[in-house]
């Protein structure tokens, strides 16, 4: 198939931002230098219409990352073929630089819960998710990235640490890891564990993207709200992570209480400064 768009990889020394409806016009007219734009894939599953048209228009100026929130990779239900078909159709249309999903489940018994729910990390689940990641990659004809999620609860039956789980998933399937530094930090705070131990267990070679976001402190723990600036502790972990990995395409996720575009771009610039100090990539992804 002939490419319709310029083939451009995200610049790993620069950050990107999430693309949200209120910024369509400002981005198209001001075109700030950004490594890439990321969208929630499901928001563009429509057959046609203005949102898709905007995404195509912006795709001419920026690499695009398709970030799925609904494939339910870890569910015991069968993979939703219609969902996968719509994702494949969108990928053909947009020619994304990156495609990602989450290490989670979102529905069971035919009922979708529309939330990224945690998995017990066991050999059984690793085999299950590995088989499904392989099927998704076959169907899309490309590598996907799988992201660590915020897990407000953990399972007593888990036998594999999350960092090892993701690295082994990548080794078995050839998928990459989307390393969400904010989720790692929230999990560590909420469960009293060490975020650095998790981040250091991730095989540097498989990290294809980093996510940064803000959260909200509540009496029940820190919530991954994506509705505020990145926490200082998360910036520090990010600096430590890129010092270990070298520069990796990094995304500022801010999709609730969406701020003005220049606020988002300023957060991206802050990430740029840290990425610029990270030296060369340690190992090829």
């Amino acid at each position, binding site marked *: 198939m002939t490419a319709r768009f310029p083939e451009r990889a995200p610049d790993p020394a620069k950050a990107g931002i999430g693309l949200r409806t209120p910024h369509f016009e400002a981005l198209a007219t001001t075109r700030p230098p950004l490594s890439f734009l990321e969208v929630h894939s499901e928001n563009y599953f429509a057959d046609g219409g*203005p949102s898709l048209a905007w995404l195509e228009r912006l795709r001419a100026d920026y690499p695009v990352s398709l970030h799925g929130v609904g494939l339910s990779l870890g569910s015991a*239900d069968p993979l939703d073929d219609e*969902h996968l078909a*719509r994702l494949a159709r969108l990928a053909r249309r947009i020619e994304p630089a990156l495609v990602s999903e989450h290490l989670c489940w979102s529905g069971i018994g035919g009922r979708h819960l*529309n939330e990224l729910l945690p998995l017990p990390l066991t050999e059984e689940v690793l085999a299950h998710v590995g088989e499904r990641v392989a099927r998704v990659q076959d169907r899309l004809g490309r590598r996907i990235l799988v992201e660590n999620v915020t897990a407000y609860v953990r399972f007593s039956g888990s036998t594999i640490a999350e960092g090892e789980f993701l690295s082994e998933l990548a080794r078995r399937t050839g998928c990459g890891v989307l390393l969400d530094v904010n989720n790692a930090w929230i999990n560590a705070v909420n469960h009293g564990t060490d975020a650095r131990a998790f981040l250091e267990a991730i095989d540097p070679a498989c990290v294809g993207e980093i996510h940064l976001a803000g959260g909200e402190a509540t009496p029940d723990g820190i919530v991954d709200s994506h509705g505020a600036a990145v926490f200082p502790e998360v910036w520090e972990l990010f600096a430590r992570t890129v010092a270990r990995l070298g520069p990796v395409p990094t995304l500022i996720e801010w999709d609730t209480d969406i701020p003005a575009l220049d606020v988002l771009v300023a957060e991206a610039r802050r990430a740029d400064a840290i990425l610029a100090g990270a030296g060369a990539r340690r190992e090829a992804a």
Partner: protein
Amino acid sequence: MSAAPALASLQALFARAVVAGEDEAVLAHLAGDPETARRRLGLYRRAILANQAGALRAAFPVVARLVGEGFFDEAARRYGEASPPARADLNRHGESFPAFLSGYPHAASMPWLADVARLEWAAHESLMAADEAPLDFDALARVEAAGQPCLRFRLHPSLRLVRSAWPVLAIWEANQPGRDGTPDREEGADDVLAWREAGRLRYALLAPREAAFVEALARGETLAEAAGEGEPWDFGTMLGRLAGAGLLCAFSRGAAAPP
């Protein structure tokens, strides 16, 4: 600690906790302090409800404004119980929300509410429908006069027709941003045609026979059938309006509708 159940049963237990608040069974499989875990399950439960209500609010902003926040959230919660989302794509979650509202006892004092919701869903679907080019008017112009009554049309995928016994368009317009909610008129049984043009939602009020004509064309009936058997009327003007808005996408002659 219980033995680890198979993934499907564990997820079923988890779902029961975060959907129905029945958390005892899954708590036995969660690590750490049970009281903390119980509260954390509550975070998921609230997030799930908020996601579903948020998707409905995005598709039905006028209904949300008409009933107020607390009413809407509660209706969204009960709708989620009655019609749980079967798919990840929350843009399609509201499909039967209008039907739910028509039978919702707490909305009985607002008998027009479900029709306002139907109009909003029509607009929502219209904005997500496939793009399609208008038909070849030169080819259409070459059809001889005798063949015209037998023409059938395929209408644009974004076209929706909402027929109501209430002045739904007046209510809908009065509740757009910047309006104070007072409809311009209280009388009316509105037939509203909604479609997308140049990426934007457009709408028009139709006369009943115009609406019946568009409905019949959408079913694949011929021009002659769609025009009806009663007193002759100027259906050509309505056809011209459809053509002018780019809503005629293909035509065929004879027995079958265009593919």
